[in-house]
């Protein structure tokens, strides 16, 4: 198991666990739900923020938030 923050560019994973208490509901609304796929599109310098495609939504989040989204990596 890994987190969104540890993905490399182009890597994908399925959201497994989501820190419900500390993450904003906005993330859920944008499609960041358990079971959905996340693809890392781009990382800014200093690995922050992180640009992902989750379930068709293209969003940028900060590293601290990305660390709280746990994933199962999809090996290709």
């Amino acid at each position, binding site marked *: 198991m890994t987190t969104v923050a540890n993905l490399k560019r182009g890597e994908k994973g399925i959201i497994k666990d989501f820190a419900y208490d500390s993450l904003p*509901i906005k*993330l859920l609304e944008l499609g960041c*739900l358990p079971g959905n796929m996340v693809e890392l*599109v781009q990382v*800014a310098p200093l690995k922050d923020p992180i*640009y992902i495609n989750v379930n068709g*939504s293209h969003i*940028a989040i900060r590293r601290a*938030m990305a660390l709280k989204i746990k994933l199962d990596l999809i090996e290709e």
Partner: protein
Amino acid sequence: MSKQINVALIGNPNTGKTSVFNQLTGLNQKVGNYPGITVEKKEGVCKLPRGVKAHIIDLPGTYSLNTTSLDESVAVELLLNKNDKNHPDLAIVVSDVENLKRNLLLFTQIKDLKIPTLLVINMADQMAKKGIVIAIELLEKKLDTKIALVSSRKGTGIDKLKELITDYKNLSTTPCLDTTKIDAQYFNNLQQAFPKEDLYKLWLVITQDVNFMPIEKKVIPDTSSFSTKSKSELKRLQQKETILRYKFINETLKEAYHVDVNAATGVRASLDKVLTHKIFGYVIFFLILLLIFQAIYDWSSYPMDFIDEFFATASEWVKNTLPQGAFTNLIAEGILAGIGGIVIFIPQIAFLFLFIALLEETGYMSRVVFLTDRIMRPFGLSGKSIVPLISGTACAIPAVMATRTIENWKERLITILVTPFTTCSARLPVYLIIISLVIPEGRFLGLSYQALTLMLLYLLGFAASIVSAMILNKILKIKSRSFFVVEMPNYKLPLFKNVALTVWEKTKSFVFGAGKIILAISIIIWFLGSNGFSENYKNADTIIENKIEKEGLSSFNQESIVENLAIYKKVLLESKDKTLYKTNPALLKDSLKLKGIELYKQAKNQEIASYKLENSYMGYLGKAITPVVEPLGYDWKIGIAVLTSFAAREVFVGTLATIYSVGSDEENTIKNRMAAEINPVTKKPLFNLASGVSLLLFYAFAMQCMSTLAIVKRETNSWKWPAGQLVFMSIFAYIVALAAYQILN
């Protein structure tokens, strides 16, 4: 039947909602603020078939009805409050074709409020390109609504949408799903406590402040009859609700919405690779910034010079045409000059918003936020502050207006408050003249001291804004969204109509919003500078005439006349008529005599103007503050210039020109005159390193710009912030200037 239908347009950001609004209303729209807050309110009127009219409100973009920002709570308030005069008869949810799933979340929430709800699927022209197929009829049935497939870019589907709006009464108001399932017990208790209320509405009211404090809390009657839930329990329920809704949406779309990934083509991936690249991304952003700078600094100087010229001519014309008197002076020097002072900003504002609208429309702005977020974070700001802060280097007024793109109110406020510290172009004339006067001409490592000083002043401006941002971030106690989730929309070609409307709107809101205040202050400053109560003021003409008769012109003016005549003589002797002058010395003498009389008159008028200003209300004020400015190394003349340049910093140079009676704004003339000025206390040159540096620092930090104050008042909707800015910046500037003078002297 002339009843207007109240329509609310609502949807996710970046769905082209505003384009749909522009298509429906055209130029019949009005942009204002919601009362008491700074959220932009856009409304317009749309003519529908069969003589019906619709009043349309373009609500701020939102992803759901779970409020996390002021913008979103505005949308929710309007949907919940039946007594609001704009409460919609019909809600139109605008979605784009690509993100339909996400937009349906909002759609189902609104439909559950039992408001008739239409679905608009925008950007329909992109469907083939993205390999998307939608079974519209099936989707209509599953969602129990009507759907309009439109392309606001191509203008297709708008007529069908208008038809659907007209027939809004036929829309069903049955909810899409039963949210009470998420905690049957809780909702059951809730219903018993408030038998008359709609459960879903109650739920929204209760959860409104879970993620955000609402602007105005709805009064919920005593809740003792059922057990209330803790914040985190409520949040958990909201999450359950969201998951439940997505389940419904996924089932709905499984049959009605198909994407063929192989057919999809897009430029997003390849553009993102370059535009958000670790190196190229910054290089491109830097180049775009250079272009914006070039436009506001350089290109806008042409229309600005023209405006300047135009108002000077108009003022001259009024003075020569209307009968002489106080009223004519008011029009020519007070009102016309004041209006000129407003219009002069239009080119810069228009250019900046042209670029900002383009960056927003294309989707590039989100990439800028992505690239700069990490850099701005230590200062309590995010990537969204970078464009306003940097454009403040040209002019703080458009920069403050540009902060509207920052959704987070605290961040926006901090950006507004610190932007005036950045070195705007109006400081340049002041800096240049004082630097050339007091900074020696030597070089350090091949760089001139003067250039280094100028650069240091720019850096100082940035440092001041960044440090104050950090401090404000610590002390401002404003509750606002603390998380950072930025959508990276797909790249789009900008729509000319949207860009033009933005530029038009911003310009209009400056002219009519801040313009009033600027006009009022410039009339006051003009009045104080050109009226006086003393006998000296009233008899200025005779006093100076008598003085000149007795003592002659001031030595500076005498010398300058001699100098000018020498130049004139040389010019004549080199002109095409030179043989004529050489063979006929009497003619040369006559010409020189005429020129001498003209110069003498000019000098006399300058001395009268100077004497008048000295004895005007403004002059008395300037003298009254002498004890305050003396510790900074200034005399009363600089005191007056500091006061008048409150209108705008560059006025400093013009005022000094008047008060030293040098008559022209030409830099070298004023500079020579300033160099000759003697400090009445020390009997040494007034402008030395200490007083010069003190003045430079004063202008670096002081809030010497009424137009900025006016625009801050408009953008924050309160006098509290501009007043605080004025007091803080002035005191800070004073202390720094004082310290500099006392240390260097």
